[in-house]
């Protein structure tokens, strides 16, 4: 965990009340590559299970998560890998 992944974890918890949630900071894997340097944001992987995703398409689930984290793209998030399930 890192301060940034804690922040993402807190935002997603509040928005979706997930039954399970894991946020991994994988920034170290990508340190120094061009895009990451430019925005300053890190690479994160989210595994989330929440009833809110029930009956939603994959794109819809990703959009819900992306919209929730909109303010974090750039400074905090450069790349976000999402694995969302409803149960």
């Amino acid at each position, binding site marked *: 965990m890192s301060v940034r992944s804690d922040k993402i974890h807190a935002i997603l918890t509040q928005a979706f009340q997930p039954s399970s949630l894991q946020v991994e900071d994988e920034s170290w894997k990508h340190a120094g590559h*061009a895009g990451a340097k430019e925005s300053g944001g890190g690479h994160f992987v989210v595994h989330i299970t929440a009833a809110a995703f029930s009956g939603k398409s994959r*794109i819809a689930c*990703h*959009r819900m998560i992306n919209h929730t984290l*909109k303010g974090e*793209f750039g400074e905090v998030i450069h790349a*976000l890998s*999402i694995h969302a399930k409803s149960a």
Partner: protein
Amino acid sequence: MSHTVLDQIDGVVKGNDVVLFMKGTPQMPQCGFSQQVTSIVASYNVPYAAVNVLLDAAVRQGIKDYADWPTIPQLYIKGEFVGGCDIVNEMHANGELAEMLKPFQNNENS
């Protein structure tokens, strides 16, 4: 955001059966996620248009607005946004992508 860029993007998306907006080129991807999607799409032997968003800052931002999707790469099939790296990987693994791309595959006998 100027409408010209969105119109331009719309033209590319609607004018090609399979379009990949990516960082770098299929020959030389500049990002691990773009690289993954390129190799998946290439494995289906379908012709596709690749747009290198690094060449034009307006397109790089424009494609995010166009799809309401904050990241690149983005794959489009028949004018429809299919997804980014995670979704393409998932659909590759479960056979959905094979189904969607079948109509556009090069016929090896022709």
